[in-house]
């Protein structure tokens, strides 16, 4: 087994090579099949490795495989080495499993695209890079994957580069990500400077061995790393690229900008849990940014009219949730939500793709309505996704979101502030998803006659993918039944919080977290930690809080139904009543305009000034001056330019002799 770990990332790479080199010569069917099969192969291998991992004793569930030394200079060593532990296993299975389904979906979705093989080459390249990211056993290799997924994201957002908006969106994503990556890179350099190694194992061992003295440095490192995470995972203030990224093909939005790549930041934070727990300040920043982003993006999503943009803001909001859980010190909850989110958000995006497919690529929900009649499969599966993301039991979102909200209060770094943010966001989420679903699938049809004529359910390959993902989105939650519910239902021990238990060797237990936090700040200062101890086993409180969340979510959905189906005019009326709020939300808090005014404009002005003032006058003056001077001087030396090679050679030799003579003296 050990020896075949490398095949997991290698297979998609093989797919890339085949599709990139021979893709345009192969029949479409073959090129698509190759792309799907290699991802499926990786999935099978990943599951096989996972099974093997489960077969090992809990404390030792980790597989290392060093492939070859990569960089080895002076004091710096880095190898291409893979690591398979529970966290990587979850990520690999999500990336390849959901990725495979999305590949299959793309077979139908991209069927008429002229750059079909190129699309699949990019998708496979993305899968490869993402797998390298999650399988790496050191920061450097992880960074390679990190940059690789960024590159693929750029390529795929701008896949339809004939459209200026698409190529602009690609560039925007790339540039915004650069800012984040710069932070990551700096963090990595710091790590190497402080710990002398970039291997996870070495770094974490040193941090855990000496938590008290390293806190300050580690805080700096963690903040820098988190800058990278905000870039890749679209958190405040670097989230601006993700909504624009919806210019890419819908499967890309589903795979990269919902299910996998944007979760890389969460993965990275969870991977570095020891370091973050050693830096309470950084952890607080993570939680605050996460909570803020969650609420902020959810409010924007309330008023968006583009089906994919609603989902994009929803993704940002859900990522905020994950960071909030991590920031509260409960990394397992964040990763669990990452997994369930991958299912239902991929499902929602693909459902949106299916709707767009039917609507001749129209994305405006104001022109939809009543689509349930024409797209029953899409409609039902979309409803599953909506219920899951709204946290309605028994769909997966209920379990993961509930755990996050509970952790934000009860985690080692939890606080009631985060809890309030979490609950409000949950209500908003339920509302905007209800708005979206009701507006698209229910009520009066508002599309044009032309569009109505063309309405059709998607081909089987796409429908089946939706159904499979819906099954996943419904059932994935049962992997991690919270202890309180398990007690109530008298479920066997091994069903209780199975996912968390499996993940804990990778992301730490509650006790470990509390221990590390206390050690890093010196104990008593962490009030939250004490509170968390007290809350841990209070089932009544847990049920009470769960009830509040549930009631709010259900209420929000019903309100949505009332506003958009029963009384269709209410939403518009409300908007007219609160024009300022509505316009602010519609314009996304004017943040893009703010960036443009504060960063882009001054930058361009500076560039212009340098060009006119410095480049034209000074640089060109110097260059032209040198040229003129050369022309004058060279007139003198033309005499020596006889054109005979042998004369020049004689000159060279004479010069050499002269130099030797000078040196000899």
């Amino acid at each position, binding site marked *: 087994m050990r*020896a075949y770990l*490398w095949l997991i990332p290698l297979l998609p790479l093989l797919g890339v090579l085949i599709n990139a080199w021979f893709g345009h010569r192969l029949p479409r069917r073959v090129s698509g099949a190759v792309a799907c099969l290699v991802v499926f192969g990786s999935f099978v291998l990943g599951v096989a490795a996972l099974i093997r991992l489960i077969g090992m004793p809990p404390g030792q569930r980790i597989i290392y495989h060093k*492939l*070859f030394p990569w960089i080895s200079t002076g004091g710096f060593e880095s190898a291409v080495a893979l690591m398979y532990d529970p966290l990587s296993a979850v990520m690999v299975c999500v990336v390849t499993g959901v990725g495979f389904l999305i590949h299959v979906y793309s077979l139908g979705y991209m069927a008429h695209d002229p750059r079909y093989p190129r699309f699949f080459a990019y998708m496979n390249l993305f899968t490869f890079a993402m797998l390298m990211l999650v399988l790496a056993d050191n920061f450097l290799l992880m960074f390679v994957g990190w940059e690789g997924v960024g590159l693929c994201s750029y390529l795929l957002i701008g896949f339809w580069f004939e459209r200026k908006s698409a190529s602009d969106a690609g560039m925007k994503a790339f540039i915004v990500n650069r800012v984040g990556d710069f932070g990551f890179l700096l963090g990595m350099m710091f790590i190497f400077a402080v710990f002398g190694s970039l291997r996870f194992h070495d770094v974490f061992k040193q941090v855990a061995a000496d938590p008290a003295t390293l806190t300050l440095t580690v805080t700096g490192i963690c903040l820098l790393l988190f800058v990278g995470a905000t870039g890749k995972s679209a958190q405040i203030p670097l989230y601006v690229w993700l909504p624009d990224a919806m210019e890419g093909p819908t499967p890309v939005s589903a795979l990269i900008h919902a299910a996998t790549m944007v979760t890389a930041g969460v993965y990275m934070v969870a991977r570095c849990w020891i370091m973050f727990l050693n830096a309470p300040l950084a952890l607080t920043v993570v939680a605050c940014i996460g909570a803020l982003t969650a609420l902020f993006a959810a409010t924007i999503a309330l008023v968006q009219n583009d089906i994919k943009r609603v989902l994009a803001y929803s993704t940002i909001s859900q990522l905020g949730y994950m960071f909030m859980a991590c920031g509260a010190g409960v990394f397992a909850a964040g990763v669990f939500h990452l997994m369930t989110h991958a299912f239902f958000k991929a499902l929602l995006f693909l459902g949106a793709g299916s709707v767009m497919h039917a609507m001749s690529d129209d994305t405006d929900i104001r022109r939809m309505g009543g689509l349930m009649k024409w797209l029953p499969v899409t409609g039902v599966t979309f409803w599953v996704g909506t219920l899951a993301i709204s946290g309605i039991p028994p769909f997966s979102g209920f379990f993961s979101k509930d755990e996050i909200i509970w952790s934000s209060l009860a985690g080692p770094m939890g606080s009631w502030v985060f809890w309030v943010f979490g609950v409000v966001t949950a209500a908003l989420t339920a509302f905007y998803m209800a708005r979206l679903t009701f507006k698209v699938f229910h009520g009066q049809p508002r599309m044009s006659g032309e569009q109505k004529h063309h309405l059709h359910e998607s081909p089987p390959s796409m429908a089946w993918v939706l159904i499979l993902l819906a099954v996943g989105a419904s059932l994935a939650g049962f992997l991690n039944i919270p202890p309180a519910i398990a007690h109530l239902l008298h479920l066997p021990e091994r069903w209780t919080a199975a996912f968390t238990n499996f993940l804990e060797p990778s992301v730490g237990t509650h006790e470990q977290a509390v221990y590390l936090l206390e050690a890093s700040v010196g104990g008593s200062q962490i009030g939250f930690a004490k509170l968390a101890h007290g809350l841990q086993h209070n089932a009544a409180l847990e049920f009470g809080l769960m009830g509040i969340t549930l009631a709010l979510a259900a209420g929000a959905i019903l309100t949505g139904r009332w506003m958009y189906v029963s009384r269709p005019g209410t939403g518009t009326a409300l908007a007219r009543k609160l024009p300022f709020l509505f316009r602010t939300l519609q314009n996304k808090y004017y943040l893009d305009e703010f960036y443009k005014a504060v960063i882009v404009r001054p930058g361009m002005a500076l560039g212009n000034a340098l060009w006119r003032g410095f480049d034209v006058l000074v640089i060109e003056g110097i260059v032209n001056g040198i040229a003129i001077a050369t022309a004058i001087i060279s007139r003198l030396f033309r005499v020596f330019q006889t054109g005979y090679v042998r004369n020049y050679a004689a000159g060279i030799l004479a010069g050499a002799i002269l130099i030797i003579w000078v040196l000899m003296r």
Partner: protein
Amino acid sequence: MLFDLIASFIKAVLVFAVVMSFVPFLIWLERKLVAWMQQRIGPNRTGPFGLLQPIADAVKLIIKENIFPSGVEKITYFLAPMMSMIPALAAFAVIPFGSPVRIMGRTVNLQVADVNIGILYILALSSLAVYGAVLAGWSSNNKYSLLGGLRTSAQMISYELPIGLSVVSIVLLTGSLSLNEVVRSQASHGIWNIFPQFLGFIILLISYNAELNRAPFDLGEAESEIVAGYHTEYSGFRFAMFYMGEYVNMVTVAALVTVLFLGGWQAPFGPEIPLLWFLIKIFAFILLYMWVRATFPRVRYDQLMALGWKILVPASLANLAMTAVIIVLGGPNAVRILSVGSIVLAVLVGLVLKAAVALRTKSAPGLAPPAGAGS
């Protein structure tokens, strides 16, 4: 010291004698075999089954007058035949033809010189073999000779690349440049290199056929186009030297391939009798070349070049890359994985070629251009 010196001397003389005595026999064998394959009788006048025919030929050639055609570059004309024969003979010095034996209480390697860079030595010498052809062609002061010399030298330079690349794969697998070590590593892997390096073997087979200037790649002496190529103007003993050089070269190549790919002196089954298995393998290989010669028609020159540069060089590069990757990643199983991978790769290359030919044929119906022409 003295013993070693004497042993080396004796070995050198023995090897020289044996290889040189192979030559007439091989000439007879080839004529007989090709005749048989072409439904002819072949030499049958001199001696039983015509066995003495090559000796008669040799005697005739030796006692012939040495002609210096007018206008030849005397020195080069004189040196060229030797330069085509010497590298072939010298290369034999490092080929091990048996496991070490004990004579008079001392271990003696069945090898003239156990150089630890034997493979490089052979590659270096084979690169010198070009001189014979190119100088002969030039010094003859004859248009056809010059063309033949140029053709031969271009062909040999081109085909040295796939040879070198394939041999490097073997070196990767062995971890040493010593030919003795190559044989020993095949014993320790428990599998002859022909399996983990199947594609390399095929490439080497084809490339050496071109390197040896044998049909179907004997463009340098294609009698239908350029009389007899670079040795058109040669006669008598000098011509015999070219002829012998060709056959000595063939024996050397056969021995080299045996060492590199077929496990050297090791027995595939049964007891290991010194020299016996080595000779059997060499002859099997030589017979294969004769069979090829009798079977395939001569290719065109641009086809030959296209085959070398567009097919064999990329294929051997692919083989080298695959070997390196698998050795690094495969760990202890590398040889086993390679055995499968190599055959898969060979089949893949074959399929790609077939597809390419089919595509070209399809693109120009009614006119099937030669394989490898154009791109």
